[in-house]
């Protein structure tokens, strides 16, 4: 058996022993009873220290305490069942289905992997047999975000970062990242821009470089009361305008569905409708089937844009 096998086996035995015990197990008890510890005392001590670190790296909490209040110097170790085990209580078949769908809609590498891991655990609670299949592999939500794992690391461990950002111009940005939010299929990064000393929002897909860590973990604090939603400028640009236009009879179907329509003659109808800030793109789509009549400044802008496209 290879060294790696021995170590794997010892770590599993140690986990099981610490999980099974109802009281703290002392080091000497562990060395005497858990399979895999051998050699002189010093070797075993070193082995045990590394093993504890490894189990903690796997996210397993090992409690240290004394099983004898009179002899506190002899410390013992144990893993609490209620912390180790997934405690979700009983799940109904439809809840299992929601969970499996929630786990599998992600395209970003971090959530895709974590979702698969989470689902293995959920399936180990109740078995896959109960789960209704919704055909969930067919739903995708996000645009691709390869930088997601690095951003997650920066945000959760509070490390400042730098990256190249491409907007109208390309520039290097330094940021204390506060959070990420998914809006309309794309991830947005919110944080304190260290050069502009202001909270800014960045569309993750416009970051063109790797994420470079500029500081060790825990190097900044998120201000009290900070909320991502307060900084999302895209939520504040929803002004709408009322338009009147002539449209050819039978044409411009998508506009008509939410418009007031009056017939003019055999060739034209007049419609009144409301559009948001992207009205120009939406009206250009109809080409010569639509003649904008008001408001006047929009008519002028539309004609100007058409001329510029020639």
């Amino acid at each position, binding site marked *: 058996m290879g060294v790696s096998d021995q170590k794997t086996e010892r770590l599993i035995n140690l986990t099981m022993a610490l999980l099974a015990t109802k009281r703290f197990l002392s080091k000497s008890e562990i060395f005497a009873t858990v399979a895999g510890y051998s050699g002189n005392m010093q070797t075993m001590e070193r082995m045990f220290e590394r093993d504890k670190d490894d189990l903690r790296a796997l996210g397993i909490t090992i409690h240290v305490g004394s099983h004898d209040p009179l002899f506190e110097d002899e410390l013992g170790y144990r893993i609490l069942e209620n912390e180790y085990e997934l405690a979700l209580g009983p799940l109904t078949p439809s809840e299992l289905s929601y969970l499996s769908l929630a786990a599998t809609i992600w395209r970003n590498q971090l959530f895709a992997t974590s979702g698969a891991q989470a689902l293995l655990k959920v399936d180990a609670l109740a078995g896959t047999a109960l789960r209704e299949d919704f055909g969930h592999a067919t739903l995708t939500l996000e645009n691709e975000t390869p930088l997601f794992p690095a951003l997650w690391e920066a945000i959760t461990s509070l490390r400042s970062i730098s990256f190249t950002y491409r907007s109208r111009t390309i520039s290097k940005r330094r940021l204390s990242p506060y*959070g990420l939010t998914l809006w309309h299929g794309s991830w947005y990064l919110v944080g304190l821009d260290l050069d502009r000393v202001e909270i800014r929002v960045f569309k993750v897909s416009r970051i063109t470089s790797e994420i470079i860590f500029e500081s060790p973990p825990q190097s900044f604090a998120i201000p009290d009361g900070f909320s991502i939603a307060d900084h999302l400028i895209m939520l504040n640009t929803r002004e709408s305008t009322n338009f009147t236009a002539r449209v050819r009879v039978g044409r411009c179907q998508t506009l008509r569905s939410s418009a007031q329509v009056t017939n003019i003659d055999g060739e034209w109808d007049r419609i009144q409708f409301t559009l948001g800030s992207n009205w120009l793109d939406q009206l250009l789509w109809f080409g010569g089937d639509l003649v904008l009549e008001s408001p006047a400044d929009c008519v002028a802008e539309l004609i100007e844009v058409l001329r510029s496209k020639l």
Partner: protein
Amino acid sequence: MKEGALDRVARALNLIPFISHNPGLSVLQIAERFNSTPAQISKDLSLLHMCGLPGYTHLELLDIDYEDPEYVSVKDAQVLDQPRSLTQVESLTLVLGLQVLSELSTDQEERAAITSLQMRIGSLAGDQIASQITITDAIEESATPTIAAIAAAIAVSQFLTIEYNSASSDSLTSRKIFPLSLSFLNGIAYLRAIAVREGEERTFRIDRIVGLSLDGIDTSYLTKYAGLGQASGHEDLEVEMGSDGLFFIEKHNEIVTSFTEGGETYRIVLRVTPGEWIIRTLLSWSSPVTVVRPSDLAAQLRQRITSALANYQ
């Protein structure tokens, strides 16, 4: 990449409760779920078979039956019969996923059930992280019952007849489709489906489906369709734009095959099905676009602009 002992321990600790609650799977099926190989899973099982509680007699060891690779079961999981708790990122993945589902749901009761589940899992993730990684509006349109109906139809291989407001042909048509998948691009929901009459794959915007009725079920349709071979009909075209070409690339990411950047201009190669859609897409881009090739598309686009302008003279 060579796997470390820790990855293996993590997998082994998940394997036992998983097999315990899903007895009778084959080694291959287990390997697929664990994103591993059958050889690796077999090695894991024989290693786990040697592990157990102090004492290490047959009463304390993990008892796993894996002699028949077609039927694996755990007879005694000792203290490992329950799965490990979720990590922070695992909980958050589920919480955010459930939030998206509740946005998509139109059924009050279903939405309440999803939200309550979301809160149960949320308590495992922690408040701090939940305030740092959020969903503002996953999708643009408020959820439509259409999405739920289509998802259900996809699951059972059911045909649909839809009333579709086609923006490219600017007309309302009724068509029979076989739904394949739902996706969201820039927050807008799309349905990929086979248009039965044309025998071709098409993409429909969910918000333009104005009517929908369920049709027959045919679980073998996809296989039959694949046998026919798909019509491709794609064409490469090349356009040149100013500095906002970047935003065009972002918006139409799915059809952009390559682009080059030269100072203030972008040259973009697109792969599309020729027709109304691409002409109107270029027409509705509010800044100048030069079609480099093919020349007939350049002429068509020019003619559209000229006739639109003629209305104002």
